[in-house]
Structure formats: C-alpha cells, structure tokens
C-alpha cells in the first residue's frame, strides 16, 4: 500500500512538472518541430543530462530502492519497430502535441479534447496488438 502511494506521489510530481514546464502545450511541440525556438530541445537535453548523471551515481554506488531492491536498468532492445514505430509515434506527437505522459496531464488539466487523443492511443494500441504477429520486428 505504501509502495503504491509512493508511485502515486511520483506521478503527481511528474504531472505538475509536465504542466509547469510547459512541455504539454501543443504550440510548444509545434514550435519544436518547426525549429522556431530552442526551448523544448534545451528542456529535453537538460532532463537527459540530469537523469544520466543520476544514473551514473546510482550505478557507482550500487544504490538500492527504499524497499532494498537493487536498481538495475534493463535495456530496451533494438528491432525494426524502433525505427518504423518511432517515426509513426513522432507523427502522432506532432499532430496531437502530446506523447503518452502529456495526454494524461492534459486530461487532468481539463483540456477535454485530449480525451480523444487518449481514445485514439487506445485504438492504436489495439491496432498494434492485432497486427503485431505480422509486423517486422
């Protein structure tokens, strides 16, 4: 129970951060892909550097979670979907101004059309589940 509460708190933290950092606003995503402003690139790069430094420290210290579980990153594998799916995902990101995290934050913020982005994402999930055996991996 305490475990789920901790995850919930991280989610609330991240939801607030998504709104306050302005990375869930359609115009920001549009301006990013248009190369109109460096804001999104600077935010993403800083996020990667901070997360990367944290991971380096965690690995060096062989850190464990508060429950005593060793912290180990399991690498995501390469397959053709990384390229094809990646490009398709990028198209959706540009159209909706939202990747999965922002969809949830937009809905919470009361931007109700984002509910349709979520419904679309679920349709996309079912499409992938249905086509998966026939897609190149």
């Amino acid at each position, binding site marked *: 129970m305490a475990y*789920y509460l901790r995850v919930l708190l*991280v989610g609330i933290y991240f939801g607030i*951060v998504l709104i*306050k950092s302005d990375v869930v*606003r359609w115009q920001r995503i549009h301006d990013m892909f248009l190369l109109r402003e460096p804001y999104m690139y600077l935010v993403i790069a800083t996020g990667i550097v901070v997360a990367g430094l944290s991971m380096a420290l965690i690995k060096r210290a062989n850190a464990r979670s508060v*429950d005593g579980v060793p912290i180990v990153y399991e690498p995501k594998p*390469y397959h053709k979907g990384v390229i094809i799916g990646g490009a398709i995902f990028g198209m959706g990101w540009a159209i909706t101004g939202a990747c999965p*995290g922002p969809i949830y934050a937009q809905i919470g913020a009361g931007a109700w059309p984002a509910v349709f982005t979520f419904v679309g994402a679920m349709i996309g999930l079912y499409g992938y589940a249905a086509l*998966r055996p026939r897609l190149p991996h």
Partner: protein
Amino acid sequence: MPSLPYNTLESKYLMIDWLLGPWPWWFSGIMIGLTVPMLYWLAGKAFGISTSLQHIGAICTPNIGFDYLSDHDWRADSWNLMLVGGIVIGGLLGAHFLSSEPLPLLPASFYSLPGILRLLVGGIFVGFGARYAGGCTSGHSITGISNLNVPSMIATAFFFVGGMLVTWGLGSWLLPG
C-alpha cells in the same frame, strides 16, 4: 531589532511567486530529469508511460484474442497505473492551483469536430507507434538515453524524423481550421 524575519518572509514569497510563474528551461529540465532517479529510488522501477496503454487494454479486454494483451500480466506492472493516475491528478493541480497565469494547452481550434478528429487520428499514431517502438519520450528519450541505450537514441531520432515530416509536410493543415 534585526530585520531578518521580514526579509525571510519576503524572500519566501518571492520564491513562491517564481515557482508559480512560467519555469525557465533549465529548471524544467532538471525537474523532469529527477523523475528517473526518484521513481527508481521510491519504487525500483524504470520510468516509462506508454506501457500503461497495454495494461489498460489487458484489463478491459483480457479475452480479445491478441497475445499482446491476453498474455500480458498487468498485475505485475500495476504500479504503472498508479503512476499515470498520479499524472492526471498532478495535471489538475499544476494547471488550476500552481499556475499564476495558466495557458491553454490546446489551440482553440481543437475544440471542434475537425479538431477532435485530428486528435483521434494523431492519437492512433501515438499509441501504435509508441508500442511498436517499445517506448515513448519517457521510456526511450529520457530513461533510455540517460542509460546510454543505443536503440533508445535511434528511436528518439526517428521520433523527430516523423514529427518533422508531418510538421513541415502538412504545414498549416496541421492546425484544424
């Protein structure tokens, strides 16, 4: 009397004002990056969001006949649903209580039938593409690249290939009229 209490109080309010205003890029980046070690430390889990779609699909339609959903043990990953539930709550708090000047997240033109249809189609691309690629901006771009995972770097490069193709190719058509 030293004037310390007054100054401390004033600076405290300045800090709150600063936090309630729009965040600069470096502060936004730091706060986003810290989510990765925070989730590892508090829950022992790798930060990622798009798998939540798979969990929701597996819960809603366990007998649909697609192995991707029927063979998926969502109970083992139920923490992920708490995470996205928290993001919804955080979105509400951030937009309505923690922003001095909230900005509309979606352009006004999305609040229309053509706008909704575009979000629906774009959403299909987001859901399909993220699951086919094995992750989205959180799992690949933030968590994957910060762990120097090469497939995540390739995925992120192609997120931008797809996004730029659509943005430059469709131009102003991207904004629903």
